[in-house]
């Protein structure tokens, strides 16, 4: 086998000798109410073969009709990717026999995509911006879902039979195809991840896709080839199919670079083929040979009339475009005054919207970050949920913060109150009231608790008097215990200092 090798060349070594060329085909499932060419609901997770009409099953006699919303969503994606929108475009049939494709052809676009010749500026972690040229974005329909039964790990090899669910058949897709991406060098894996992340973010921000990679809303096929450094002619590429997480995109590109280098170094040549990504071993295996001459016998779909886009329609859609995510991030970072790392952590945690809303509700940028990146993130992790899915409202944060500022509760109590809020006990104020959680401000009670602690811990007192002020912390425990945690730590500290004459 020409291409078989277990060997990999170390990434850095590979990049000393070769320039990688990347290319991506990203499929985005649109979240329209109905499918691309039928009235069937476009919904995830329903009982198999329930979201189907005669059209989706490819019954004899049926005809497709175009979902206008899907066309508008496709144009929005095209505009967000700085593409030209075709004045007139049509659908074509891509003919191939496969049981997940009810008509045995996929209705797609061929030589006249709805959007073409755009670009996307990708910002890498260190702020370097890399422009990725977009060749085209075209509309098509998804296939059904096959489940292979009786074999190992759901693979078709060795299966006894396969089940097919046509709920997904006909779900609108936009396929975004890049031009070859040259010059990423050793940042290729990182760029791959950032590119797919940017596409996901854009379609989510547009509201045209649920953009959940784990559900297949965004799916990436990654093309990789290597050419000797300084060469201009691209090497033979492989296409790694269905790399469906950001981490996997990065790993798959890295793996293919290392594998290609090893094949080339051993004097063999790369076979043009599709590759399968395996998350468990973080490696790819050979799929099927693929050539540019794969014959899908495309021809214009005779059951549909061309789509004509008027300038007015496009401008109306352009006016609907939200602020691009990258520009929004730049603006928010400046407004909030976060440090680079702080802001990056916020972005990575996916809580930009939440923090923005919390600040809008009246909290300071620092307070909003403290809560969302601190206690709320901790609770989400403990509950194994997305931070946003916990259901914390900006109002809750603002209220907790004002209770702290009014010295009614301390930070520790505030965190408890948050848990009670999430348990549905009411607003923070109601909970503080109901559970009698207000901080003990009774000077007499506090003074007594401090006297007791001083009496109980003479060695600590000696240290404090000796100048080790941080030892005050050791007194805090018994005081908090005596006041059931409701003492204001700052005030306790002041009392200790007073009592010890410091």
């Amino acid at each position, binding site marked *: 086998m020409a291409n078989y090798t277990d060997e990999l060349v170390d990434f850095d070594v590979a990049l000393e000798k070769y320039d990688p060329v990347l290319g991506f085909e990203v499929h985005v499932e649109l979240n329209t109410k109905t499918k691309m060419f039928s009235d069937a609901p476009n919904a995830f997770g329903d009982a198999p073969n329930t979201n189907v009409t005669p059209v989706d099953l490819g*019954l004899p006699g049926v*005809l497709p*009709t175009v979902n206008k919303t899907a066309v508008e969503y496709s144009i929005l994606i095209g505009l967000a990717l700085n593409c030209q929108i075709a004045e007139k475009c049509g659908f074509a049939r891509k003919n191939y*026999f496969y*049981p997940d494709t009810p008509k045995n052809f996929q209705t797609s676009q061929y030589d006249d995509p709805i959007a073409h010749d755009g670009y996307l500026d990708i910002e890498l972690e260190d702020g370097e911006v890399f422009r990725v040229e977009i060749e085209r974005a075209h509309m098509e329909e998804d296939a059904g879902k096959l489940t292979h039964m009786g074999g190992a790990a759901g693979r078709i090899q060795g299966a006894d039979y396969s089940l097919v669910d046509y709920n997904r058949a006909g779900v609108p897709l936009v396929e975004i195809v890049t031009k070859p991406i040259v010059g990423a060098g050793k940042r290729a894996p990182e760029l791959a991840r950032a590119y797919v992340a940017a596409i996901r973010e854009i379609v989510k921000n547009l509201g045209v896709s649920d953009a959940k990679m784990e559900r297949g809303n965004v799916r990436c096929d990654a093309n990789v080839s290597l050419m000797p450094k300084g060469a201009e002619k691209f090497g033979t590429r492989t296409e790694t199919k269905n790399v469906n997480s950001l981490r996997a995109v990065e790993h798959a590109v890295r793996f293919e670079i290392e594998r290609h280098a090893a094949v080339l170094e051993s004097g063999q040549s790369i076979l043009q083929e599709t590759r399968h990504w395996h998350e468990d071993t973080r490696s790819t295996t050979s799929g099927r040979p693929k050539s540019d*001459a794969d014959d899908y016998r495309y*021809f214009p779909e*005779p*059951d549909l*009339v061309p789509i004509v886009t008027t300038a007015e329609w496009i401008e109306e859609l352009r006016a609907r475009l939200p602020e691009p995510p990258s520009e929004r991030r730049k603006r928010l970072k400046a407004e909030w005054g976060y440090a680079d790392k702080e802001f990056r952590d916020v972005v990575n945690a996916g809580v930009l919207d939440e923090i923005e809303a919390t600040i809008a509700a009246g909290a300071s940028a620092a307070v909003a970050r403290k809560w969302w990146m601190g206690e709320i993130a901790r609770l989400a992790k403990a509950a194994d949920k997305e931070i946003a899915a916990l259901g914390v409202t900006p109002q809750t944060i603002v209220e907790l913060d004002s209770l702290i500022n009014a010295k009614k509760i301390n930070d520790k109590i505030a965190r408890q109150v948050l848990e009670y809020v999430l348990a549905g006990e009411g607003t923070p104020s109601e909970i503080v009231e109901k559970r009698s959680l207000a901080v003990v401000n009774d000077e007499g009670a506090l003074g007594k608790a401090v006297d007791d602690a001083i009496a109980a811990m003479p060695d600590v007192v000696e240290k404090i008097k000796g100048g080790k002020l941080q030892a005050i912390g050791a007194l805090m425990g018994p005081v908090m215990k005596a006041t059931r945690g409701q003492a204001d730590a700052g005030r306790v500290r002041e009392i200790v200092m007073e009592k010890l004459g410091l």
Partner: protein
Amino acid sequence: MSELIHLSASELATKLHSGEVTSVQAVQAHLDRIAEVDGAINAFLHVNAEEALAVAAEVDAIRAAGGEAAQALHPLAGVPIAIKDLIVTKGQPTTAASKMLEGWMSPYDATVIEKIRAAKLPMLGKTNLDEFAMGSSTEHSAFGVTRNPWDLNRIPGGSGGGSAAAVAAFEAPLALGTDTGGSIRQPGAVTGTVGVKPTYGAVSRYGAIAMASSLDQIGPVSRTVLDSALLQELIGGHDPKDSTSLPNSLEGLVAAAVEGTAGDLTGVRVGIIKELQGEGYEPGVQARFEESLELLKSAGAEIVQVSCPNFKYALGAYYLIMPSEVSSNLAKFDGVRYGNRVLPQEGPMTIERVMGATRAAGFGDEVKRRIILGTYALSAGYYDAYYGSAQKVRTLIQRDFDAAFEAADVLISPTAPTVAFELGSKTDDPLAMYLNDVATIPANLAGVPGITVPGGLSEGLPVGIQFLAPAYEDKRLYKVGAALETLLEQRSGHSFISQAPSIDAATIGQKG
């Protein structure tokens, strides 16, 4: 034999409306006729007696009750109709005359069937055709040939031989057909009936099993021009389920047919297409054609000569475009979701092999021939030379029509080059079979409407005269068609169809 079966649809509708006849009587008379003669004709693949009688009884009850509901009945309510078995129907099998779909029941109705149900026309059953509408003789049906009522040894045309024969044999006053390259008009010509291919998009295709989507069109089959007009007005109109359907209904078809029966064509320019006559057309066909011209002239029509030089490429272009679309449209018949599934007799049981075995066993030779042709024509490296060139020819043919319609209001030609030929005489020669559609195919390639009306007999067999009109101008066809029909009747003193030989016990015994 009940006289009811000899009435035209409009005559029957009048008697139903006046209460002289009930729909149940009319439906029963046709069911009796089917029972009597269809053993010999084999026009029907399925007879829908129970439902047809139930719908008839419903119409009779509404009419008997009177009032608004009776007033609101469609003019054709209660008039029975036969449906080409390429059009899907709930409650009756739909086979496309293919083993592939034997026993398949559609869970939905075609749009035209919804309209027929809404208008309460009792459906007598489903009529025979060439498998998936591929053929010109109905000999390619998987369920036996249909015989021509004028001569049981001859073909009834195709693909819609069943609908045409049923109407010609008085088994139904009306039928639905589909016309991709002449499948309504050529059977109409050889059975002495009227058939119309409307403007592309005038009638929804939703629920007509697609042969070649860009060419297919559903249309009426009847014994009079007026009846076809009535039926086209019923089934036509925009359908949101068919993106290629016209935005507006074509109006005034019935009025045009009525106007035509006055027999006055003063000021109408009728264009003779130079390329669709003469060589290749039987002398008897040519003679009836020329007599028709004389009749039209006598009625005041101005006869002009037009040339459509690209029509000579029409057959070639058609036999590239049609199979290309066929190869894709018929891909869905793979045994995975519906229809018959055939397992390979030996070797591994993979999905590809099950699909292969199913398609090998389920499709007949003509269907396979066209799938193979189309697959080839669309293949990489051949697409431009075949499909691409054919599409260019299509544009040239459209331009020929545009130019011709500058000079003429309607065009005229023989519908088919020959009268009905004998069963089995062309089944071994596909090209000879294809040549039958040489005069009908240009209309499909250009999307323009066409009608066939009987133009007399040659050697005792019907000859069809075809009129073609510009897109959306179907009403011109109904006017000139009705005029020629009237002129021929006036000349002969009787209706054309009354010359049809009776299909009596003796003939049936002879052929049965």
